[in-house]
């Protein structure tokens, strides 16, 4: 099939349900088709929008989907002993703001001898953009992505620049809304107020205590430290219930500087219906 016929077939498929101005995903220096990933190193990156237009007063939900080549992994916000998290640098129209990148729950793996946290297969990160009051022009949102993929033998970086343009409108769901909804389920959420984390240090040993209602069962849960260089990345965090609280003992990270003042832990799996993120901040 010739290049042009393939392109118009893809666009036709998209226009049918949408009836709205096309969402254009372009990648420099090549023009690529809507929703096509751009390959760099051992991953392909795509910028997705959950809406087909933006509406002032509503956040614009975007997704960054990374597809890793088989055998290669990418890294989490705490990459572990080595590795590099995804970096996203935005170029947005005047007054637009980008929120924090939200990372999906990782898995733990080893790269050679080094322990790490990250992703194999695919990872979809979510981020909200916020249009300023009075925005009415179509907005071109560009992002420079940098990542690292490694296997046991090598590490290869990836760099792409992606963009998409959104017209002003009613902010109704776009074609990628389903992908973003599925991705949301893999992003840890803050639990209710009844769940809290406490952190105590004694020399090189750190004791984590999670207080939670009886109904929260952390048996078999995988726990990951989201705050880099705080807990030993080589240690497995296992919570056991003692006297109504869930406790885990883990060595402090050998590169931690001074007393721990903040810690975020991600909990996933076991009997949890959705991944959680519990946070502790030292009292001032």
């Amino acid at each position, binding site marked *: 099939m010739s290049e042009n016929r393939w392109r118009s077939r893809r666009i036709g498929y998209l226009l049918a349900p949408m009836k709205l101005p096309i969402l254009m995903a372009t990648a420099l220096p090549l023009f690529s088709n809507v929703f096509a990933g751009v390959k760099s190193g051992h991953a392909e990156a795509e910028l997705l929008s959950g809406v087909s237009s933006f509406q002032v007063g509503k956040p614009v939900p975007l997704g960054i989907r990374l597809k890793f080549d088989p055998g290669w992994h990418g890294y989490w916000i705490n990459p572990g002993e080595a590795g590099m998290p995804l970096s996203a640098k935005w170029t947005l129209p005047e007054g637009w703001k980008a929120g924090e990148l939200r990372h999906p729950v990782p898995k733990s793996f080893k790269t050679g001898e080094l322990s790490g946290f990250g992703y194999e297969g695919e990872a979809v990160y979510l981020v909200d953009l916020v249009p300023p009051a009075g925005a009415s022009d179509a907005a071109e949102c560009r992002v420079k992505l940098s990542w*690292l993929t490694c296997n046991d033998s*090598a590490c290869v970086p990836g760099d792409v620049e992606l963009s998409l343009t959104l017209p002003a409108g009613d902010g109704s769901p776009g074609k990628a809304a389903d992908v973003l909804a599925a991705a949301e389920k893999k992003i840890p959420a803050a639990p209710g107020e009844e769940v809290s984390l406490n952190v105590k240090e004694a020399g090189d040993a750190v004791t984590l205590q999670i207080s939670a209602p009886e109904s929260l069962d952390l048996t078999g849960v995988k726990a990951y430290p989201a705050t880099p260089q705080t807990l030993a990345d080589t240690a497995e965090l296992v919570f056991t219930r003692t006297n109504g609280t869930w406790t885990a003992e883990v060595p402090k990270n050998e590169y931690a500087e001074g007393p721990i003042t903040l810690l975020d832990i991600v909990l996933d799996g076991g009997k949890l219906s959705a991944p959680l993120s519990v946070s502790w901040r030292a009292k001032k």
Partner: protein
Amino acid sequence: MKQHTFLGAVVGAMICSATAWAVEPGEPAPAFTVKNTKGEEVSLSDYKGKVVVLEWINYECPYVKKHYGSGNIPKLQENYKGKGVVWLSVNSAAEGQQGYLAGSELAARSEKEGNKASQIVLDTDGTVGKAYGAKTTPQLVVIDKEGKVAYNGAIDSKDTTDVADIETADSYISMALDSVLSGKTVEKAKTKPYGCGVKYAK
């Protein structure tokens, strides 16, 4: 002779795991003898009384490429050699692993990369790497004139593969060397090294 055997045994015991036995700043630098790219023996004891830098290399690693492609490490090598520092580039990759190069090939590749080290040495069985807790390439160790480890960790403060970050990063290696050369305590003696994993034998 006896002392050599004792140190040899200590180094031997440290082979167990790169992370479990990492030599901490303040501790005596483990002795070693390795061969350079010409096949000549190089021992740490050859440089008794001098400030020595150990720099772990793997020219295929994007983090090493960042610091050689930009000329950052070669500049550091020249600068500090000029101040009497002995700079050893160490290749601890096992044969068959990424970054491994035999003597003459390692010499040729090092020349191409602009490496200005005093010596480029092969640590193919990983003994030296594991004795010093070398986890990544690059990783930098500074040994002071008294033969103690004064610094062990990252080259600088920006854990990325982006050359543009070198300028604005804190150069931990420069800070450590400047302190050691002026007889001051190194403020940041231990930092988390960043880079690709050292490719020890599997």
